[in-house]
Each structure stands twice: as C-alpha cells, then as structure tokens.
C-alpha cells in the first residue's frame, strides 16, 4: 500500500504544482490518474516513486518512508515506465532489458543468476520483444523501444508498476496488448498498477479506481464508473462529453464532443 500524506511540490519555488495532496493506493488495484495538462499527474507519479522529494508531507510504501529508502530498495518495490526514454549509445535489446535486474544484484561483485535469466526472458516474452533481443535499440521503432523499456521495468519484478502515459508511441494494437498483459499481472499476481491516462476510454476499460487531479490537487476520486460522469468530466476538462454504457462489457464509453457548431 502506498500512502501519501499532505504532499506538496513546487518546481520553481513560487507556484505550487502539487498542493496538500493526500491519497492512498491499495494493494492489487489499478489506479488511473487523469486530469488536464499541467494538473500535476506526472509530478504526482514522480513523487510517489521517489524521483522528486515533496516540499511538505511524506510518502510511505508498505509502511516505510520513501525518503528513508535507497534507490535500490525503491527499485525493488516500484518499476516505472517513463513518458520519455532516451538512449545515448546503441545497446542490444537484450542488454537493455538486463539492466532491470541491477536492483536485485549485489553492488560490489554482482553475479548473473538463473533467476535473473528467467526474469529477463519472461519480460522479453511478455512484451513480445523476444524476437528482437539481438537487435540494437537504435534499429527499432519508437514503439518497439517503448516495449523494450517496459520489458526492462517488468524484469525488475516489482509489486508496483507505474506507467506514465503508456499509450505514448504505441499503436492501438500494442497499447491494448500491453494493458491486457498488465491486467493479467494485476489479477493473477496481485500487482498494483498506477497509470497516467490521457485517453479516458482506456481508463474506463482498465482502471478500478480513478484519481482526477486539477491544479495540483484532488478534484475527484472514486470507482471508475463513479468518476467518469458527464458532469465531473466537463468540470475537470472544461469541455463537454457524452457518456454511454457498453451493454456487452458494462464499461462506460466516453464520446468526445466538438464545440464547433
């Protein structure tokens, strides 16, 4: 379980990007974080995984203060797929994924174990990057690279998985494939998934709960079907929506409306 208590953050010291936000993420649930641009979604995620230190307040993972944990300890708890991934030198896909195992090995005389091998080949299989494991990451497409970094995150074998805009760079087929896979991990292995979503229909399809942020603080939170209503979304984004029920899946379908007459 991840608890954050009264956290706030500011990039420039003047304007608050996160304001007194308190929230708890339960084990085994899928939380979607939504909100307009600049609402603090990514900042919130970065504070939760210890990348940014909150100005006030604190974050606890499974009863431990994140500020007291080393990067290595955090990396054993939380794997993160960032929105932007960069590389300087062209490593093999295989070697890139292997780096995900660093947190599980000794810092001084690391040995490569069978468990490391299994974790890496599983991660490659799960993200269907197995067939390109000998390719260089400079040779593959942006979407394929995104899957390679996802494989790296899977190789960490953490109970928590954070994804910042997972559909970035990915086509619809791969987005669905990866989100289905995460759902499977959530259901079968009780992993906790936290994703930032721009696409509200994806949020509707996969999330158990939704946290809507606006101006760096909680605008609304609750079960997915309770948050995804026409009124709330209109207030949140400042544009109108039409929401329908899909009778086959019992999930809400969000229809975007144009304001152009």
């Amino acid at each position, binding site marked *: 379980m991840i608890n954050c208590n009264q956290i706030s953050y500011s990039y420039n010291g003047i304007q608050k990007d996160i304001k007194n936000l308190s929230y708890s993420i339960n084990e085994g649930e899928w939380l979607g974080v939504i909100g307009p641009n600049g609402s603090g979604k990514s900042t919130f995620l970065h504070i939760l*995984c*210890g*990348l940014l230190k909150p100005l006030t307040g604190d974050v606890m993972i499974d009863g431990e203060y994140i500020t007291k944990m*080393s*990067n*290595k*300890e*955090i*990396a*054993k708890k*939380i*794997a*993160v797929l*960032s929105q932007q*991934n*960069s*590389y*300087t*030198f*062209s*490593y*093999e896909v295989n*070697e*890139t994924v292997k*780096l*995900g195992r*660093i*947190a599980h*090995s000794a810092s*001084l005389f*690391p040995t490569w174990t069978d468990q490391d091998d299994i974790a890496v080949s599983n991660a490659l299989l799960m993200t269907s990057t197995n067939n390109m494991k000998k390719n260089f990451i*400079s040779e593959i497409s942006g979407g394929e690279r995104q899957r390679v*970094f996802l494989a*790296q*995150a899977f190789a*960490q074998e953490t109970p928590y998985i954070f994804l910042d805009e997972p559909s970035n760079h990915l086509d619809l087929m791969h987005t669905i494939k990866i989100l289905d896979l995460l759902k499977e991990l959530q259901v079968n292995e009780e992993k906790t998934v936290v994703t930032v979503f721009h696409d509200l229909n994806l949020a509707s399809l996969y999330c158990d709960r939704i946290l809507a942020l606006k101006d760096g603080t909680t605008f609304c939170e609750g079960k997915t079907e309770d948050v995804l209503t026409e009124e709330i979304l209109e207030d949140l984004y400042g544009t109108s929506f039409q929401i329908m029920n899909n009778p086959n899946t019992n999930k809400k379908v969000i229809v975007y409306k144009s304001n152009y007459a």
Partner: protein
Amino acid sequence: MQRRFIQRFLNKNIFLLPSFVLLLLFILGASIGSTSIPFYSIIQSFSDAFFKTNFVPDDIQTIVMNIRVPRVLLAGLVGACFALAGVAFQGILKNPLADPFTLGVSSGASVGAVFVLFFQISLPIVTYFTLPVVSILFGFFTLLLLIVFVRKLDRSLNVETLILGGIIISSFCSALLSLFITFSDNELRSVIGWLMGNIGGRGIQYSITLLPFLILSFLILFSQNRQLDAMTFGSTNAKHIGIDVKKVTYLILFTGSILSGAAVAVSGTIGFVGLVVPHYTRAIVGPLHRKLLPLSMINGAIFLIGSDIISRVILAPRELPIGVITSLIGAPIFAIILLQLKKK
C-alpha cells in the same frame, strides 16, 4: 562456416588482437629513432636487463632501456589513462563528445603543472613528484569548483549544465596559461611544450608514478560497469532501476579526474585521445562497459604509442609534439562524430 568460426573466436577473445598489436607497436616504438635498433636486439636488451645475459653492447642497451622503453611505456600508460577517462566521462555525461577536456579537468590540471614549472616549486615530501601531484590536485580542484558551480544552477547535475560549466572553466584556464606565457622568458619553451603535449625525455619514474593511479582507477571504473551502462540511459531511468545516481556520478567523475590529472602531469595536454579511442572501441565491441573499459585501455595505449611513433618518424630527424598528431587525427573524427550525432 570458417569465417563464422573466426568471427566467433574473435568475439570470445576480443583482447587477443589488440594485445598483439600493442606488443608489436611497443617493440616498434623502441626500435625506431635516430639509431635504428632491430627487433631482436630489443628483445635481447630485455633479456640482458632482467636475466643478466649479455647479448647486446652497452650503448644499445642504454638507448633501449633508458630512453626508448621509458618513452614508449609512458606513451602507452598516458594513452590508457586518457582513454579510460574518456569512457568514464562519456558514460556518465551521456555524451560521446565528452572527454577529459570537456569538463575542464585537463585544463585545470595543466594550469597546475605550468604553475609548478613557472615558479620552479618543489613541495616537501613529494619533492621530485611535485609536478604530477600538483597537477592531480589542480584537476581535483577544478572538478570540485565545477560541481559546486553547476549545483548552484541545477541540483541534479544536468548534462548540458555540466558541459557548459566545463567550457567556462576551460576558457578561464587557457587565459591563465596565456598569462603565464606572457610573463615567462626562459621558461617559455617548457611551458609551450606542455601546451602541445610531449612525452619524450621523461624517466621511467614517471611511468611508475602513473601506474598505481591507472590501476586503481581502472578497478573503480570496472566495479561500476553496470552502473555506467545504466547511466547512459539517463539519470531518471537509472534512478528507476535502482542506481544511486548521485553517488555513482561523483565517484566516476572523481575517478576520471584522477586519470586525467595524473596523465596531464606527465605529458601535458594531449587532446582527443579520450574522444577518439572510446568512439572506435565502441564501434568494435559495442557500448557494454564490461568490454569497453578494458579494451579502451588497450586501444588508448595503442593509439598514443602509434601517434608517438608517427611524431618521431614523419619529419625525422625533427620531432613533432605528440599532441599535434593526436589533434590532426582527432579533430576530424570529432567532426565526424558530431555529424553522426546530428543525423540521429
């Protein structure tokens, strides 16, 4: 089939060919000069020196063991130092154009060296080794200055800010060097020799001073090889997969500055070794630091011994400063890397 076998053999024994080339160049370097000494006499000289045999005349023995071998050995060690420093800085800065000079560490170290030459300083305890010790300290000091300055701008030590800071420090240091030259009369020659880089006429003691720094730094860098790999994907990703980014960054930068400081102390500012060697080594074995570090060390030695041989041969009997050769090779390669980066 056969070609595949050879390829696999070379892949498994990536050090075999470079080691052989290194050995060959080492003997060639000791053989070439105003008095040409045949290969077998070099080997015989070694035998005379270590096994008390008596194959070669004393004058040949003196030339080989007291002049040629110290020079070639020093060239190899200095090359290895600069190349390793280049690998370290490039990995941590995520910048294939970074080398000891980008951070201004080398220029800081050479200010230290020129300072000692100009004022004829001799420190207690280290006496004879005042020059290298002061250089290393100045290199360290420059790096500390850079880090303090850059942290004021950006607490996470952003790559661009760090290089910008290096440029500021380099400019300041070259102004200081010019100042020294303006004020010097007789000392001018040695100072200018310093600026262009020179490895001739230095005793075996310099190699002995340099060696422990090289070994220690290599061990530190090699122990961090996976961390270095992770750092090339950026500090955010490195942090997410569990790297103590700040600790690793400081450790690598410090190690790199020991390497550059010690090398500058004995040879002056020999440019582009730390840029060219890692670039080509990466092209051969890929970017994994587990392979890149040891192989760059060997290739750095090859590059500088080769450059030294060229500098002695090309205008014989006149000798060019070795820095001229490395820059003539290095500057166009710098341009090529830049073009490749822009195309990406």
